[in-house]
């Protein structure tokens, strides 16, 4: 049941959730805005759904 990070490659979605939703937000000289983070989630979704479509296409 248990998996440790060292033993198994972390799912990208787990990583993105934590790296873009967590962590200390400090004002660097460059930081991502909320809009930038939304952009990442949108592009993640777009990628996954296009991969899904591709796979369906191959199966047909």
């Amino acid at each position, binding site marked *: 049941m248990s998996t440790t990070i060292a033993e198994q490659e972390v799912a990208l979605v787990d990583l993105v959730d934590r790296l873009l939703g967590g*962590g200390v937000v*400090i004002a660097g*000289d460059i*930081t991502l805005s909320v809009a*930038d983070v939304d952009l990442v989630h949108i*592009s993640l979704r777009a990628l996954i759904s296009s991969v*899904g479509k591709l796979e369906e296409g191959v199966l047909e």
Partner: protein
Amino acid sequence: MSDDLLWAYGVVAAGAPLPDDIEPVADGELVVLTARVPRDEYAVEPLREHLNDLAWLERVARRHEAVLEQALAQATVVPLRLCTIFDDADGVRRMLEREREPLTRALARLDGRQEWGVKLLVDGDRLAATAAPAGDQAQGEGGAAYLARRRNERQAREGARALAMQIVDDVDGSLRAHAVDAVRLPAQNRELSGHTGDMVLNAAYLVDADGAGALHEAAAELQGRHADAGARIELTGPWPPYNFVTGETTTQPA
């Protein structure tokens, strides 16, 4: 202007062992783990464009995680959000000066503690069957029988939802007893995570390092207790404590 920018991974206490290929920027008792990145790739405009490039994002995210995990294996670390970038070491030191107090407080609070991720998944069909065992179904074709069936279906749905909430409360409540802090996160999008079943709980728990074993045992016991609903508990960690440092700082970016 230098050709490089400084990517900041996280903050550790002075004297902590450093991960590979890291340039430490120290000020007083705090050290920021940084690495040089090319300006033409990481300045504001190219950075925004790269965010659309999933391969780029994945590479950068895995590098961020790998460095923090290496730091975490040897010391307490305050993880910084992805894409915290500075023009130069002076910029990093100015940040440290500004954020010294909250960062110091975070390091003290996280010392000797671990973040574990917990996802609880249930099987919708088994949940419904457990909540409302198949009994006398209204038979027949008349309007009354139809309405009775509709009513039964609605009650079954409500029963399944109520049972799911009970299971979530039991699991979350039992695991919180082993934790010093806990947060509930939004359930993951199935398209992204590819999980099967219904993700009814996605949470993170901050536990004392010597209590991690007890958390694992409790999770296994809870999974068994709710086996009728097809409960699966997925435990991941220890993570850099991403979910227990938000709201820690005084300044927020625009």
